[in-house]
């Protein structure tokens, strides 16, 4: 199992119950992380969209994760 620290922004901070969460998953990709997040926090599926950022950039599902990566949940943005 791989353990990752996630930082949650906007509405995801409220859905996860805090700014940070730790999650253990079998795989090591963004896609595997997303599947695990949706299982643990099914309320995330109600969002219009959810992107995952790795080291300050939007990441595709096949991006590989390491424990040192900065991983963030990016719900629909609404700046401006």
């Amino acid at each position, binding site marked *: 199992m791989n353990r990752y620290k996630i930082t949650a*922004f906007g509405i995801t901070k409220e859905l996860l119950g805090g700014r940070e969460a730790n999650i253990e998953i079998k795989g090591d990709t963004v896609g595997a992380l997303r599947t695990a997040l949706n299982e643990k926090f099914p309320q995330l599926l*109600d969002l219009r969209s959810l992107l995952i*950022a790795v080291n*300050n*950039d939007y990441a595709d599902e096949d991006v590989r994760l390491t424990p040192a990566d900065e991983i*963030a949940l990016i719900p629909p*943005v609404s700046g*401006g």
Partner: protein
Amino acid sequence: MIKITEKSIDVQKIIDTVSSLSAGALNVFVGTVRNNANGKNVLWLEYEAYETMAVAQIRKIMDDASHRWPLLGWAVSHRIGTLKPGEVSVVVAVSTPHRKDSFEACQYIIDSVKAAAPIWKKEVFEDGEEWVSARPEMMKA
């Protein structure tokens, strides 16, 4: 200049930063807090940013814009924290030799910042609050 700030934005200061003697045009977009949303009174907005990523994404947008238009000066400043109706939430300013480029660049930059920068706002009403655009049922045509 890219700035994410909790302090109120001084538009004139930004204009001064961007101005250039070789510019024939200086274009500024000022985003302000509206006092209503979906027919309800907005008391205030709570803005939040993932700051390091917001700066990184805006830098990408500006690299792109700098390749497309002859920018002589530019600045993007976004406010975070609690903002009341009428307050300035975002400013984009560019200067270019001629006006057409300044209009196009300014619009491209603010549109891209709104689409890609990890910044969020929550509207606070008399009877509740909601994160803007977060859920499908709250989207309005």
